[in-house]
């Protein structure tokens, strides 16, 4: 053996305790089920205080539900992502894979007590989120048996592409610039400048630079000198 006396075999129980990930093809998904009704209980008891009763809150994080339509469920593309008519991009607008929700809720939610939900609670509350998003009916029971069917209803299931050059270190960049050195074409005036309101919103920049050296921090508690 290459490295004598280093490490040991993991036991089955150990792997079971930590190997909790669930893939888009549902590898890793534990058997079980949960109803929308039970999901509502879980949501209102353990989730709503942060995410809002309808998953709409942006107090603690961006909204989970909203912005998807019946039409999206058919096409598998959330139209609002192209027309930008929604003020925010909710979780349900973006997420393409139901496994992602299941896996994440199971591993990380509720935020202050992650990994404390039962398998049934995770099934239930996932179902409830999809119910709030009008993907699943009120009477639905989500289970390892039917989750692949539910995947086919995800509003943005066709909204992901892996066709780009940023996965492989040798991938082909999409933006190709040229290093002009002399008399390069440039607009005469800045196209955008720092809004006056943003000047001091991070605190006084004078206190975020040394009081000696090549430069000083600008006193942003006052307007920019003219």
């Amino acid at each position, binding site marked *: 053996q290459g490295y004598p006396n280093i490490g040991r075999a*993991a036991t089955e129980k150990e792997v079971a305790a930590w190997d909790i990930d669930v893939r888009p093809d549902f590898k890793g998904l534990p058997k079980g089920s949960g109803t929308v009704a039970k999901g509502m209980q879980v949501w209102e008891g353990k989730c709503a205080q942060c995410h809002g009763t309808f998953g709409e809150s942006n107090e603690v994080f961006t909204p989970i539900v909203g912005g998807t339509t019946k039409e999206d469920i058919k096409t598998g593309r959330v139209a609002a992502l192209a027309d930008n008519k929604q003020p925010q991009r909710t979780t349900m607008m973006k997420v*393409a894979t139901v496994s992602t929700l299941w896996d994440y809720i199971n*591993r990380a939610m509720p935020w202050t007590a992650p990994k404390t939900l039962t398998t049934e609670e995770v099934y239930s509350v996932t179902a409830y989120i999809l119910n709030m998003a009008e993907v699943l009916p009120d009477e639905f029971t989500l289970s390892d048996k039917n989750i692949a069917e539910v995947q086919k209803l995800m509003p943005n299931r066709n*909204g992901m592409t892996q066709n780009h050059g940023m996965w492989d270190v040798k991938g082909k960049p999409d933006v190709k610039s040229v290093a002009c050195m002399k008399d390069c074409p440039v607009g005469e005036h800045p196209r955008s400048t720092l809004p006056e309101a943003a000047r001091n919103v991070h605190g006084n*920049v004078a206190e975020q630079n040394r009081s000696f050296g090549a430069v000083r921090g600008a006193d942003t508690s006052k307007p920019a000198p003219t």
Partner: protein
Amino acid sequence: LASGSALAQAAKGTAFEGDPNILKLPEHATTLGKPVATNAYGMPSKFETNLLRRESPGLTRVSAASVSFTPLQGLFGIITPSGLHFERHHQGWYDIDPATHRFMINGLVKNPKVYTMDDLMRLPSVSRMHFIECGANTAMEWGNVAVPTVQYSHGMLSCSEFTGVPLSVLLEDAGYDKKNAKFILAEGGDGSGMTRTISIERALDDVIVAWGMNGEMLRPENGYPLRLVVPGVQGVSWVKWLRRIEVGDKPYATKDEAIHYIDAMPDGMYRQYTSIQECKSVITTPSSGQTLLDKGFYNITGLAWSGRGKVKRVDVSVDGGRNWRTARLETPVLSKCLTRFNIDWVWDGSPVVLQSRAIDETGYVQPKINELRAVRGTKSIYHNNAIQSWKVAESGEVSNVQVY
């Protein structure tokens, strides 16, 4: 202003006899100082307290799922002081007891294994310098100018010397399935159980299961006692408080690669698994929020980097991109590492716009923001590697602008 240039100082008085700071010997020249090991673990000078990592108000809703930015405006060279390394946590940070920390490899391996820190630190180790940049660095500037300093525009960027065991060594040790392994999943031990998919090619190339950072153990905020180092790839893949690597044959589409860290395209599609941080640079001094006290000579300095290899060249413009000169690169110039550049400049007191543009060893040229937007639109959030413009006003004050 307290000090100013020596020239300005001399000009103050007529019949200038000399600077009282020279003529009258300071206290430290005429008394006895403090003993060695007064601070058994030393700290910066009391005159350095302006350089801190800071949050950007309004960026996130809660500080335990937020960012603190590195104060690039005051840093030198390429090594980020560990105390100022940027932070990005999704469910807060912990100071984990290394005696209880375990690391597991499972999935498509012959021998699923468990390692203690003792085990890992006995294995063949490497030490390498790499930058880490959050995929969302400079996100706030995809649209218009939004933030007042380079700390907030580019400060999700740090660079350290990392020490650990190559992941390839561990994958071999566990007997990974050479035929079927296509991806790995890296998983954190924190509440978020941060999970990211990495290609087996990356995993076997230069990825490190690291405990050391800048000569000592990782800082708690950066994953003590164990984190993944994935050179060239966005920071979220550098899983902190690393507890597990799973070998698999399909990607995992975890929350932070299926809902976040996906790049919104103008047609409404999202690019998923956009990992590589493309070539980028920024001038750190002079930069927005700083003021030049005087005309005359300045050293323009900044940072350049590429997730695809070494920086080959950095050009600097002092006329808003019309004309460019090539800057000096400090050594070492390392792959997937920050490179410090410097160039001479004499400021004549008129308003100017400063820009830097990096080119990496693949020949890729750092783009202008309009070139990026032409392909990716304005909603992308992630991977804004555009040329940054800083405007120097007649007053000497520098501000954040977009010029192209």
